[in-house]
């Protein structure tokens, strides 16, 4: 017999307990003030209600994603996978509750039971199988560096440059990696790349909820780094940065990681990187959530831009630094897609364009990809550039 639905089925301690075990322990701290919801980037997508504040309560009740109605459940899983993990809610929460972690607890269970969006399933599978989320061939991973004289990493080199997947494969993003090695070569930095041995850092797998595969990828990456004798890693993507820095150590990683903007800012301050040419453009800087809010790197990118002659530096009023708004690509968002009126990226692009800038400066390949793709369907006279590209242009 089918269970009759009654009030008590709303409270399911068993689900709650397992979610807590999976990392949702924050739920008990919630006092349902709702601040998270109005801090959430989805709040700015005007036609769409995204009930962040409900997640901890429903998790505590064991009622999250537990509807037995097919349509209702689809809606809930849709909600669970809308979270871009930008942590704007966590940044505002009086009790430091990480809603992304609560949702990730649910995601982990759902992933184990194949109950998550197909496109993410295939993304995870591709990273697992070929080391990148696009299903591109491993042997093409270093194609971006062809003709640039980029050596393979060898013991004794100071830095491993780790461009990650988008800059490795995606044509537009490859320019970031190319600009980065251009700068490094100009500054005579001792560095190499892993090339075809490089594999996705796995950040997105973990955010999607495929914890086991993340662990597998992580351990194999750490082994690869160890075997190559890597001590210092320079990354382009804030997503690699946060994963290497904050999550890999739990799996025994022992290497230092720097984001390129940190390193370039340092090179500028110490006079090792001289930006000769001027750049007479109005540039607005978009703080990527993962670099800014999650890792508190706000000043270095600004320092670089402010050191470029002629560059007029703009901020997005009200929405900069920790109050920046996500581009929508995090935690699997790059692969998911919502109705045109329901896209965070459009909100963010509007804020950026309203500054009157000529150029949006980013420091994250995800942001670049989101902005570039969205700008294609807008008649906008604004360009997106990674800070590395701007520097490279001015060398």
């Amino acid at each position, binding site marked *: 017999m089918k269970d009759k639905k009654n009030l008590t089925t709303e409270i399911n301690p068993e689900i709650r307990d397992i979610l807590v075990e999976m990392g949702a322990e924050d739920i008990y701290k919630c006092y349902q003030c*709702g*601040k998270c*919801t*109005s*801090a959430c980037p989805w*709040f700015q997508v005007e036609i769409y209600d995204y*009930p962040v*504040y409900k997640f901890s309560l429903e998790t505590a009740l064991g009622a999250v994603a537990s509807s037995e109605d097919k349509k209702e459940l689809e809606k809930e899983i849709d909600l669970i996978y809308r979270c871009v993990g930008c942590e704007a809610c966590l940044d*505002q929460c*009086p009790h430091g509750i990480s809603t992304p972690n609560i949702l990730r607890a649910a995601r982990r269970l759902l992933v184990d039971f194949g109950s998550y969006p197909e496109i993410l399933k295939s993304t995870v599978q591709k990273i697992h199988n070929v080391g990148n989320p696009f299903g591109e061939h491993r042997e093409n991973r270093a194609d971006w560096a062809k003709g640039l004289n980029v050596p393979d990493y060898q013991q004794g080199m100071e830095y491993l440059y780790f461009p990650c997947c988008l800059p490795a494969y995606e044509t537009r993003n490859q320019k970031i990696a190319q600009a980065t090695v251009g700068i490094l070569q100009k500054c005579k930095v001792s560095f190499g790349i892993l090339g075809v041995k490089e594999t996705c850092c796995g950040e997105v797998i973990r955010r999607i909820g495929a914890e086991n595969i993340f662990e597998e990828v992580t351990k194999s990456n750490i082994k690869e780094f160890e075997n190559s004798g890597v001590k210092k890693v320079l990354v382009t993507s804030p997503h690699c940065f946060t994963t290497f820095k904050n999550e890999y150590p739990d799996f025994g990683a022992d290497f230092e990681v720097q984001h390129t903007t940190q390193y370039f800012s340092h090179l500028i301050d110490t006079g090792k990187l001289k930006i000769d040419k001027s750049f007479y453009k109005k540039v607005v800087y978009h703080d990527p959530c993962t670099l800014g809010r999650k890792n508190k790197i706000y000043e270095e990118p600004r320092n670089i831009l402010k050191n470029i002659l002629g560059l007029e530096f703009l901020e997005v009023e009200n929405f900069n630094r920790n109050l920046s708004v996500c581009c929508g690509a995090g935690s699997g968002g790059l692969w998911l897609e919502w109705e045109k009126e329901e896209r965070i990226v459009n909100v963010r692009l509007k804020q950026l364009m309203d500054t009157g800038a000529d150029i949006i400066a980013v420091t994250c390949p995800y942001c670049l990809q989101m902005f570039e793709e969205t700008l294609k369907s807008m008649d906008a006279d604004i360009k997106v550039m990674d800070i590395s590209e701007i520097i490279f242009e001015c060398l």
Partner: protein
Amino acid sequence: MKTIGVFVCHCGRNISSTVNINEVVEEIKKYPGVAFCTDYTYMCSDPGQDLIKKSIKEKKLDGIVIAACSPSLHELTFRNTAEKAGLNPYLTEVANIREQCSWVHSEIKEATPKAISIIESIIEKTKLNESLSPVKVKVNPKALVIGGGIAGIQTSLDIANSGHKVILIEKNPSIGGHMSQLSETFPTLDCSQCILTPKMVEVSQHENINLFVYSELEEISGSVGNFKIKIRRKASYVDNSKCTGCGVCSEKCPVSVDSKFDEGLGKRKAIYSPFPQAVPNKPVIDKEHCIFFLKDGKCGVCQIVCTLNAIDFKQKDEIIEEEVGAVVVATGYELYPIENMLEYGAGKYPDVINGLQFERLLSASGPTQGEVLRPSDNKIPKRIAFISCVGSRDPEHHLPYCSKICCMYMVKHALLYKEHVPDGEAIVFSIDIRTSGKDYEEFLTRAKEDGNILYIRGKPARIIKQGDDLVVWCINTLTGKQLRVECDMVVLSMSMVPSSGALDLARKLRIHTNDFGFFTEAHPKLRPVESLVPGFYLAGTAQGPKDIPDTVSQASGAAAKVMTLFSGDEISHSPIIASVNEDLCSGCSICIATCPYDARKMDERKRIVSVNDILCEGCGACISACPSGASQQKNLTDNQIDNMIRVLLHSNAEALERE
């Protein structure tokens, strides 16, 4: 060798649930020197105490150990019990087998041997205890009250009215504190100034009260009953004996700066009296802004216009030395800085203000003469958002505690706003509404029902300026609907924090504060107006957020405590203090520098150090500092400690073997 009796308390099931009492009793009975051991459910109860008394007499005990809760709770009880049975109270010791044993263990097999060890070590201590008698100290029946807000005023008046002298010091030019800034008070909505000023005047005129405004405590030494204090009276550059408070100087002063009293919404002069009803009503010169001081003697308009020659630019800070027997700390509160709220514009939007600023806007004596006008353009705001718990109840970014008064003053604000601007709209954003005071809930009900005030449950995440409007981003957590409320003005209920300087003062007084700088009371329930250090009392929001009724109650409570202290000629002081073995002392004087209480003095003749029994608090600093072992704590000698440690180590080894 003493004949020692041991009394093991069950403390209901507090101890007996994890400590096997029978086993403990049997084991202790076997311990050398123990003549008698028994147990009882509640040793602190009358029958329990009778048991102790009877046993002391019958067994001729000359030392007893009570194995029970922490000595901080019942040591005094049991010492009194012993004394009644004719035993010197200092031959009584408490072995803490509750807080340090039964409460921290869950396994009987772990807690029981530990309890035995603890008791055995205390037995060893007791064996070497001496009979002591309390040190008697004469009390100086004069009180120091620090802070001239409503708490300080009330305390001062209560003590003064009982016939004792009071020194009241206030760092601002006038007493009155924040209460003088308020327009009306909840829940009765009576005029704050109207009820406060009579008390201010009373203070200034009271023959037993010596008021020092514009003054701060510079230094304090001594201990309960006998403190020596130094007060710094800051130079006001006005000779108060000549000044009549006519106000011409302020009128003519060319410098205009933000008025602190008006919370930055109004202006004052460089020579100013903070508000018309100020007590004393004498101006002071703000050296930071005065042209005379900034530009080396240029200006001096005030001096010219003062017909009484009261301006004295040469005045210097004055140090006044006094002696008092008790100190009441009533330093009050401040509001948490709005600049900490990045998401609410961090103080950059002039129309996002705090609660005290709104009080000034409502106040008839305020910068707008009681008209509610928004600061940016003096327009009448047609819709005001009131946001609660700003900074409060936010352990992650700000302050974890509830500031207690905000819920109520928001009700008041909203009501008064509607009274001032009848067609205005008041929207209150709150999460929980706490109305735990007499008539408070009724007040809230009235506001909602009769005042047409809209309450929305939800904590806004952003305030964004859009053109002329401020847009509050929030979610109504009851409906789940997103809200973007456009308002003309936003009032933030910023949390209460201790007033700046409270920490410095705490350091000077050597009394404790909690993590947030609020002064710590001796016991959260039973001794709420005393500090942990004898002779210091707490009143008002210096101790924690509270409203006016609670502040006044606590102030009177503190006054009563002070009066109790003053009621006898002398007080006794614990004899558990340091002593010097004259044979061992080499006169190196290290202890003199170490003593935080100035209780040590070099006897120049003998070239050895002696202890002032009255000043010594028994902190033990000198004992650990003494290189020759000449300093000893009475009834806690090195020998005793050594024996206690030996027993603990030995019996723990045994306990290990037993397992």
